[in-house]
């Protein structure tokens, strides 16, 4: 975990432990922002109880860090997060959500909105790390205004008991996005729902899923691209099933409402080939090390 000194927003359980302000950036608990900035109300789905508000008004040349953790038993977080990147800015954000130890039985619910104004770009790496007893239900909506660009990577290498993550991306004129979701699933029921809505002319986007079905996991991923204007989109869903106790269902869906749009998809679920395993074992890696290397390669981590 990152040192707390580098974190701009740190929340543990329901308490904000650290708020570090940078020049040109407003960082507040979302409940406070709701009161202070009337305009923010149009973005929050409802009055937030907890969570972060990050408003980036000027260019910064370092990444922002937000961290939301659960450290006590039976905590139920209900977050309302909002991130707004103003016009022409080029921003990096690293976000982490986790439970700090096992047997906390935490519930992490999040409603988040990310707004990229005209000509802005965001590189967002979102890392989740949970334990077997947790329930995690994030729901994020991205709005990409004209000519904005998003590079979003969601990584979940330690899955909770139940994960239901919903992501909607709305792209306006000439906006582009690359959404990559990576999960190494063990002892979990995971549902991933992604929707990419290409609303206006010239919008383009790609959804990439890399899902590993480890021990006792049930994975359902439903990815959809909806093309409403002349635009381009691609879905790339891949699963790797490595344990007989698991299952993966990939449901790619393309909906085209404009004859000039071009949307495509590919989906596959494979297994680790014996030949790959033997090859790596003949290089001196034991079976577990060889499997880990293959999984990491597949997940691109």
């Amino acid at each position, binding site marked *: 975990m990152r040192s707390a000194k580098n974190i701009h927003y740190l929340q543990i359980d329901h308490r904000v432990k650290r708020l570090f302000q940078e020049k040109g950036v407003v960082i507040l608990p979302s409940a406070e922002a709701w009161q202070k900035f009337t305009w923010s109300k149009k973005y929050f789905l409802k009055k937030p109880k907890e969570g972060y508000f990050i408003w980036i008004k000027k260019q910064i040349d370092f990444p922002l860090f937000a961290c939301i953790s659960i450290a006590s038993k039976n905590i139920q977080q209900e977050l309302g997060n909002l991130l707004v990147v103003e016009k022409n800015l080029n921003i990096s954000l690293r976000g982490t959500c986790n439970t700090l130890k096992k047997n906390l039985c935490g519930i992490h619910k999040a409603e988040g909105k990310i707004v990229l104004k005209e000509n802005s770009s965001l590189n967002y790496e979102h890392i989740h790390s949970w334990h077997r007893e947790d329930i995690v239900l994030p729901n994020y909506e991205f709005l990409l205004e004209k000519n904005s660009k998003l590079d979003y990577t969601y990584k979940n290498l330690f899955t909770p008991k139940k994960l239901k993550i919903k992501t909607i991306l709305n792209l306006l004129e000439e906006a582009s996005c690359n959404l990559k979701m990576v999960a190494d699933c063990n002892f979990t029921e995971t549902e991933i729902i992604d929707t990419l809505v290409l609303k206006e002319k010239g919008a383009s986007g790609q959804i990439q899923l890399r899902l590993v079905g480890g021990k006792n996991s049930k994975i359902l991923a439903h990815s959809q691209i909806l093309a409403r204007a002349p635009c381009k989109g691609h879905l790339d869903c891949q699963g790797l099933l490595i344990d007989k106790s698991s299952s993966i269902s990939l449901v790619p869906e393309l909906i085209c409402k404009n004859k000039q749009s071009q949307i495509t998809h590919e989906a596959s679920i494979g297994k680790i*080939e*014996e*030949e*790959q395993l*033997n*090859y*790596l*074992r*003949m*290089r*001196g*890696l*034991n*079976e577990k*090390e060889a499997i880990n*290397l*293959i999984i*990491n*390669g*597949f*997940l*691109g981590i």
Partner: protein
Amino acid sequence: MLSRQIKIKLVFVRMKKLEIKKLKVRANRREILKGIDLKINRGETQALLGPNASGKSTLAQVILGNPKYKVTQGEIFFESRDITKFPPEKRAKLGIALAWQSPPVIKGVKLSRLLKEISRKEIEISDGKELLKREVNLDFSGGEKKISELLQVLVLNPKLVIFDEIDSGLDLKRLEKVAKIIKKELVAKKVSVLLITHSGEILRFLKPKVTNVMINGKLICKQKNFRKVLRTIKKYGYEKCKKHTLSPN
């Protein structure tokens, strides 16, 4: 006198890197190796020639412990240890390495990362630097695969290396370069080498001490003069090796 005899015997035992005794192997209900006997000493280079599907690559895979193949009879000794039942990683750690003929793709894993994971020795890489950033064996040409295999073998700091068709898919210039590296990094350092080859191209650069010929899962002969073997094969075919020119030594 007795102690001298024991000493001589010990030196002899220590010299033997690999010894295969009466090895029979099955896969998919078919007997592939039908009683192989093979000895390779420390620092010795040997060749194994044979037509397609004669069992050469199977022998290499079995020496490395590929669980796909079932040893139904015989033993494999490495440095006097019976390794017949050892898993592949244990054999690799003992110092046996194999350069594969057709290595599999490891998607998403760059060659530099694989080398880092398996490395037991730092090597200076002059050839193949451009491959380091690429995913292992993905879209590699035939020649690139050979270079990648050679790099992997070298970082393992092996005592015995089996090269399975290292000369196929290499042009003459590349082949000479590869042979030079094998000579400098392995042969000169007393590493034992078994060259499995269909064409025999590489033999004139590495001049094996013993050349074996395998047909239909059996070693039909051994010969010190590899040129003689190649000539016979060229003139009469593999089947005639035993009959026409070769005598077991």
